[in-house]
């Protein structure tokens, strides 16, 4: 009697705790149509993907479109994902980066200075000056060449290691170092007056 009871389990929704923590296993299950596995993957990776897209593109609407496209591709091509070749985060980031660069370039042709002001939610009680400062930093960040901007976003904002950034951009660690150095120097130059205001004065 109890044997019969144990036989009954939902074929799609059941995911063991081990599998829940294992991206490769979840991707396999998603490839077989397991919507629960797919939902866990979206929940786990959406923040990172949206964050990179939002910082790259400068507005929520485009970042949402890109995130949606990234996860659509995950669902459609989960069967082709090879966990031996790369981690899922790397795979998703590469798709995101390519989509962002494509979108950014297309948009630049339409309106070169159409970068949205950062959206400040009501509960964030920051002063107008702080908002203006961050808007200016974001604006200057967007004036950087694509790869320099990506290097800064992935290393300084998303907190990836140098090795991971190199992997995501498919370049060497030395090349990432060079991108970062150039990006920081350019930003420093562009934000010279803002930086001076932050520096301690000797006199």
């Amino acid at each position, binding site marked *: 009697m109890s044997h019969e009871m144990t036989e009954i389990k939902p074929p799609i929704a059941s995911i063991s705790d081990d599998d829940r923590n294992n991206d490769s296993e979840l991707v396999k299950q998603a490839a077989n149509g397991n919507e629960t596995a*797919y939902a866990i993957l979206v929940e786990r990776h959406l923040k990172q993907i949206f964050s990179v897209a939002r910082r790259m593109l400068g507005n929520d609407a485009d970042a949402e479109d890109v995130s*949606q496209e990234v*996860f659509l591709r995950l669902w459609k091509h989960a069967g082709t994902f090879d966990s031996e070749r790369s981690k899922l985060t790397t795979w998703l980031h590469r798709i995101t980066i390519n989509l962002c660069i494509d979108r950014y370039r297309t948009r630049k042709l339409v309106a070169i200075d159409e970068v949205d002001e950062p959206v400040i939610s009501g509960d964030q009680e920051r002063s107008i000056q702080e908002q203006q400062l961050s808007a200016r*930093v974001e604006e200057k960040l967007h004036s950087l060449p694509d790869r320099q901007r990506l290097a800064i976003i992935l290393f300084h904002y998303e907190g990836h290691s140098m090795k991971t950034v190199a992997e995501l951009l498919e370049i060497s660690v030395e090349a990432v170092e060079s991108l970062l150095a150039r990006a920081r120097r350019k930003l420093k130059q562009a934000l010279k007056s803002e930086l001076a205001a932050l520096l301690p004065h000797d006199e």
Partner: protein
Amino acid sequence: MTDKFSVDKDSSKYKLQRLKEVLDIYGARSELWPEADRARLLEIISQDRRAHSLFLEAKAFDSLIQTVPDIKVPEELNLRILSSVLKTERSDNATPDVPRNNVVPLFSNRQGRLPFKATRKILPTAALMAASLLIGVYIGYSDLSTISPLGDATTEVAVLEATEQNEFSNLLMEQSMEESLSFTEDLL
């Protein structure tokens, strides 16, 4: 004797130069710096005024670029992605018995036409089937032709012996096979 190209990594000049490079790349967070350099660079920051001011400048710059607000994922985005993506997939895969992942749509490349690779694979099989059909039809007509053209004229002639008739049929069959094969080769 020291090589004229060798670098004294403990010299202040070298350390200051290296500090500039490291700050340019990694910023002021020493936990991000290469481990091989860290101790040496922290030492010069604590000892050299110029190094110290470079470090402070990098620290200020780090805090400046961190003024960009944290990114918040719109609350309903997760659900929106799930509903639209899963809905799309369901309408795409109308056939319930086919596993969703490894389906390779045969007509995805060109509508209404077989993809080039598929055409190449199917062609020999199709040609062989066509050839066998032709052989069958040809043999059928050949057997009839051995009787019908002679018709009534042959009724008075002594009946051919079975062996002779067989030889005649075999001859016709070989001839028709050769013709069919050459036709198939032409097709291919």
